């Protein structure tokens, strides 16, 4: 597997080295790169296999907290650093627009961050100095230019960013589409989610397997639902029908849907197995609390199959983010309602087993792990109107060490005490990877 193409190399002075390298290593280099720190696009360079240095948290502004604005918060996560576990930078973008997810461009120099309410996309330069991200561009015409709203997932393609929207401008329902921008932020194409052959038109996450020329998408809900107060939503039986129940297998090159899988209960994050040759993916359903395995059967037909319950589905633990280990042997699954993270053994992906759990806080949403799996980070916010109220509205980043048996807390950043807001999506950067790239 080769995911890093920006590397230091020992020098030899002749082009002969090039040719010899070609002869000796072409077969290896031609194998598809598969992943970044376990969840990013396989088209992205600059894999951090060592120690991540900075952790960026896309943070929702919260009324009565600090400047009340959405912001990108940067935390030093290098153990032993004088500012370890501390906020070293924060850049407010103005207003509260439901800050949600982020994604790097293929060169890892820019971080795109979206807001689900006003559909703005903010592009931060994290290549020049990742300790101090700079806002370099804002895309504020998504709805007008595409008809879609709620930019959720940002997935690097070579020279492009593929954006999965959650909703549409016309009725704010769940029928939506994919938007392709080039890295400069110019609109390249729009692709509607399928409404035929079983498709419900909904969208959520994107995951690509380049070697198979396959893309998977999942499905959540539209603007009307994700902006509604959670207590109101769950009592609205009509609204509760408006959740996605499908996943779609695409021909990536053609950007055409090939097959729609019924996956009831809002399948959310999708992770392809990172182990070379293991061409399967896994997802968790939010409303039905199940892990689904997506793989080919003995007849080479792709199928999505429920393979495990997550907690007790009857109690609606609400599985949210998941994080797969780099060897595809285990999967962290957060459940929002009980603020718990659960580790599943994936050594046989047909029969995942929960082998560990730990309560992280009153609520827990996102989880990110380092490439070696030894460091695991958690944040709390799901959506501004879905987060818990009162004392249970804890907002934090917690960093843990994982020794294979126990999560041990290393640091906590209280996002309320720090005047920051609601802590949501996380991404890593490392100065050493990029310092020479000018």
């Amino acid at each position, binding site marked *: 597997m*080769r*995911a*890093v*193409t*920006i*590397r*230091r*190399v*020992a*020098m*030899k*002075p*002749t*082009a*002969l*080295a*090039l*040719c*010899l*390298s*070609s*002869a*000796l*290593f*072409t*077969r290896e*280099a*031609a*194998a*598809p*790169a*598969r992943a970044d720190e376990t969840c990013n696009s*396989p*088209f992205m*360079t600059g894999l951090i296999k060592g120690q991540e240095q900075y952790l960026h948290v896309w943070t929702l502004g919260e009324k009565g907290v600090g400047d009340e604005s959405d912001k990108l918060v940067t935390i030093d996560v290098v153990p032993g650093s004088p500012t370890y576990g501390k906020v070293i930078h924060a850049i407010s973008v103005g207003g509260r627009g439901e800050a949600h997810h982020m994604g790097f461009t*293929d*060169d890892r120099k820019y971080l795109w961050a979206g807001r689900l309410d006003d559909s703005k996309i903010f592009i931060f330069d994290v290549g020049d100095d990742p300790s101090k991200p700079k806002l370099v561009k804002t895309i504020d015409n998504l709805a007008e230019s595409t008809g879609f709203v709620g930019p959720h997932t940002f997935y690097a*393609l*070579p*020279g*492009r960013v593929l954006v999965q929207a959650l909703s549409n401008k016309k009725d704010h329902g769940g029928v939506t589409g994919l938007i*392709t921008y*080039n*890295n*400069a932020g*110019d609109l*390249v*194409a729009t692709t509607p989610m399928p409404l035929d052959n079983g498709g419900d038109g909904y969208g959520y996450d994107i995951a690509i397997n*380049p*070697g*198979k*020329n*396959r893309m998977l998408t999942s499905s959540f809900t539209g603007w009307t639902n994700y902006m509604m107060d959670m207590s109101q939503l769950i009592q609205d039986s009509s609204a509760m029908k408006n959740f996605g129940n499908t996943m779609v297998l695409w*021909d990536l*090159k*053609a*950007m055409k849907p090939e097959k729609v899988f019924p996956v009831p209960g809002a399948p959310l994050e999708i992770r392809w197995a990172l182990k070379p040759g293991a061409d399967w993916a896994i997802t968790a359903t939010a409303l039905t609390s199940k892990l689904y395995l997506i793989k080919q059967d003995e007849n080479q037909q792709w199928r999505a199959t429920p393979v495990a319950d997550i907690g007790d589905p009857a109690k609606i633990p609400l599985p949210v983010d998941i994080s797969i280990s780099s060897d595809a042997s285990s999967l962290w699954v957060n459940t929002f309602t009980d603020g718990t993270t659960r580790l599943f053994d994936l050594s046989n992906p047909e029969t995942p087993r929960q082998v560990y759990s730990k309560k992280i806080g009153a609520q827990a949403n996102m989880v990110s792990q380092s490439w070696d799996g030894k460091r695991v980070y958690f944040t709390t916010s799901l959506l501004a109107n879905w987060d818990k109220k009162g004392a249970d509205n804890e907002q934090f980043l917690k960093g843990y060490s994982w020794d294979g048996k126990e999560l041990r807390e290393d640091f906590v950043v209280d996002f309320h005490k720090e005047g920051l807001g609601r802590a949501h999506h996380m991404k890593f950067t490392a100065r050493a990877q990029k310092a*020479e*790239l*000018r």
Partner: protein
Amino acid sequence: MTALRKRAKGRRAPSAMLGAAALFCVAAATQARGGASAVENLPAPGAYVLQRIQRVPEAQLLDADGKPVALSSQVNGAVTALGFFYGHCEDAAGCPVAWSTFESARKAAESDPLLRNRLRLVFVSLDPERDTPSVLRILGSAERSGDAPPWIFLTGASAERLAPLLRAMGQDVGYELDAVGRRTGAINHMLKVFLIDPDGWVREIYSTAFLTPENLLNDARTLALAFRDASNAQKEP
């Protein structure tokens, strides 16, 4: 610092060695690609449309004769695969992959009536200091082959003059420095190959995850079907 590293610092490799290397590369790269795994499940050529990702920017480069040429003149009119390289690269996941992919693609295109006269290959050096026009001539002559599609080698007047093109194309580069801040000669770069239509639009970009001869050829055939008038014949400046 080893003797090899001392020699690497800003010196031009001997022409004879480069020539031998280039000739060796033709055979080695082609053989190495023989059993490379392909991207599975590619749609049939012409059954899909490649996105218009970005325009190829204007840029002034030098050809193998040292003459200034506009990049647009080297890509317009043909289905063009363009890659950035440097002659001293030894990153196995970098230039050699592009080199061997071009070798394999060109060999296949030579016997393909759809591509033989429509596909053009262009290599632009990231290292104008060492990859001078005279070096390009050696590389170009080593890669000249009968009726095969042309493979053109270009370089910049200087690294500074080349930089705007690299930025515009999203070709990330960094010059490795030693402990005292001098360039070692290594150029860190992300492997990218650009497929360009005859109108000068980048229609696909391949990084290591997606770069195989089969994938490149499939897309080139798709463009050739859409641009029947494309021609790789060299135009007079």
